[in-house]
């Protein structure tokens, strides 16, 4: 693909943002400990692996923010943008295209869990939208969700790459 790539970048960001939002809003897996697990982090992980840190940051962050706006919690949109954007950015930086070793994948997953659980705790308290004692309640759920997400995201990436051979040619 040669020539002006602006149209391709716009399409990539838009469609991956939509994927993150749809995974967050629609696809819910019943959790063994009750309630549901959203696949937001799985989509963020997938975008980071497939398209790298920059696309991951924008699409991951925007997708989570759009899910909040549409899902009826617009007040969390900015926080979600930062948390999931940074999550994808860091994962994308760790698993560079040519060094996707098992150790790197585990490191990326651990960092994702730390960023998501710590990020929400820190930012919701910092923005004064809750208090520490309430925010800390959300931590175990966020840890579980981002850890499951990191694993599913990697499986998803492997599966997609097998079915769609041109995946790497879209990366920039």
């Amino acid at each position, binding site marked *: 693909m040669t020539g002006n790539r602006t149209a391709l970048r716009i399409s990539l960001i838009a469609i991956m943002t939509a994927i993150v939002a749809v995974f967050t809003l629609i696809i819910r897996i019943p959790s063994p400990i009750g309630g549901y697990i959203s696949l937001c982090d799985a989509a963020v992980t997938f975008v980071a692996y497939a398209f790298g840190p920059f696309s991951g940051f924008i699409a991951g962050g925007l997708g989570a923010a759009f899910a909040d706006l549409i899902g009826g919690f617009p007040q969390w949109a900015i926080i979600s943008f930062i948390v999931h954007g940074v999550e994808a950015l860091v994962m994308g930086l760790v698993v560079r295209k040519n060094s996707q070793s098992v150790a790197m994948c585990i490191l990326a997953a651990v960092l994702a869990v730390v960023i998501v659980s710590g990020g929400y705790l820190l930012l919701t308290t910092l923005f004064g939208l809750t208090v520490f004692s309430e925010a800390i309640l959300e931590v175990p759920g966020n840890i579980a969700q981002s850890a499951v997400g990191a694993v599913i995201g990697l499986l998803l990436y492997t599966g997609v790459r097998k079915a769609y*051979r041109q995946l790497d040619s879209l990366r920039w």
Partner: protein
Amino acid sequence: MADIDIDLSFSYESGEGIFSRFGLSLHKGEHLLLIASPGSGKTTFARILTGAIPKYISGDLDGHFIVDGNDVLSLDIPERLEIVGRVSQNTDEMLLFSSVEEEISFPLENLRLEEEEIQKRISYALDLFGLGRYRNVSTSELSGGEKRRLMLAILFAVNPEIYILDEAFDELSPEWRKRLADIIRNLDRTVVVLGSHMLMEYEGVFSRTLSIADGSVRPYEYRPFAFPDFHLSIGESVLEADNLLIERSHRSSDELSSFSLSIPHFELHEGECIVLLGENGSGKSSFSRVLTGLLKEMNGKISIDGKVLSAKERRSTVAYLMQNPYEELFLPTARDEAASTKASEHDIEEAFYLFGIDPDAYVQELSYGKAKMLQLAVFYLLRRRFVIFDEMDSALSSEDFASAVSAYLDNGRGLLAITHDMSVAAALPGRKLRIEGGVLHECQ
């Protein structure tokens, strides 16, 4: 010398050769029909002319596409806007925005037309294709036929020198097919229509008809395809629906009426073939979804051999081959898809042969028509007793469609075939049903 001269050689990155010296000359204002079987390169041809190939789908392209002495292939895609435009076979891949109005005004804004001219063209094109009242409606709520008409309206609003319609008659009801044929007949632009088989609506519209074979343009020989005599051996088992009421509502606009469909009685025997006709949006697909258990009925009951079945139970008894084949194919290769049905190796080989499938082909790289053949093979292997074909004839050659119908009927499946093509309807054996005014009834 002709006004438009095309000479193309092309092969995909995978090495698969498509065209070798594909030559075509056209006069301005000429209407040309190109009929060729699925996988022969019709869509590739359309994409090369607009520039989608080789920019977005890589390959090795050689040759020229000369309009008024200039080689269009040397122009970047957006600069071709006023020269050539296409309506793609899969409309979903071309939609960009949430509302009908945004969709149609986008190219007009890009042409830098005056606001007044933009509004004039939007109203003209939407009215031409009966979409005037859909202007502020969300594109996600349009039916397949309506989306097709929207894509046509966009092309007519832009009004380029050359119109390329890739299977644009697909999904349109017989009435709209006739209207589109009339519109093309009166259009003084160059039009190239790409199709997989002859439709009776094409008559009197085109000055020439050509075909593609082995990567080059060939003269088209009209061989009126005679559907074989299908042998029906009606079995014992029967799918029945009684006093069925189906309702669906549109959300985004009050202007769109919600619809309801009532089916006093319907029965389909094993080995029987029934044709189902009806306008766009009349509820043919909704009826199919209810029969197959994907949509809940408002009222009534559906039974097999007298035993009432729940929606979930119906899903594994009634197969539904949707219009868009990609929605039913999920695995990397054709072989993976076939293996997922748990059929025996022998049966899989037979199905590949019967439906002309390359086992190693990647599903996502198949053309639309080829994907339909694979969809047919998968459901053939699943051995459901009852099968619904939703416009299965549209992107296939008549031969392929006829052999698929034979394969299913010979195996004793009960077949409900939805079609917009009256000649297909006439050629298929068995009863004809029509949905009209919200009621399903027998055709006389």
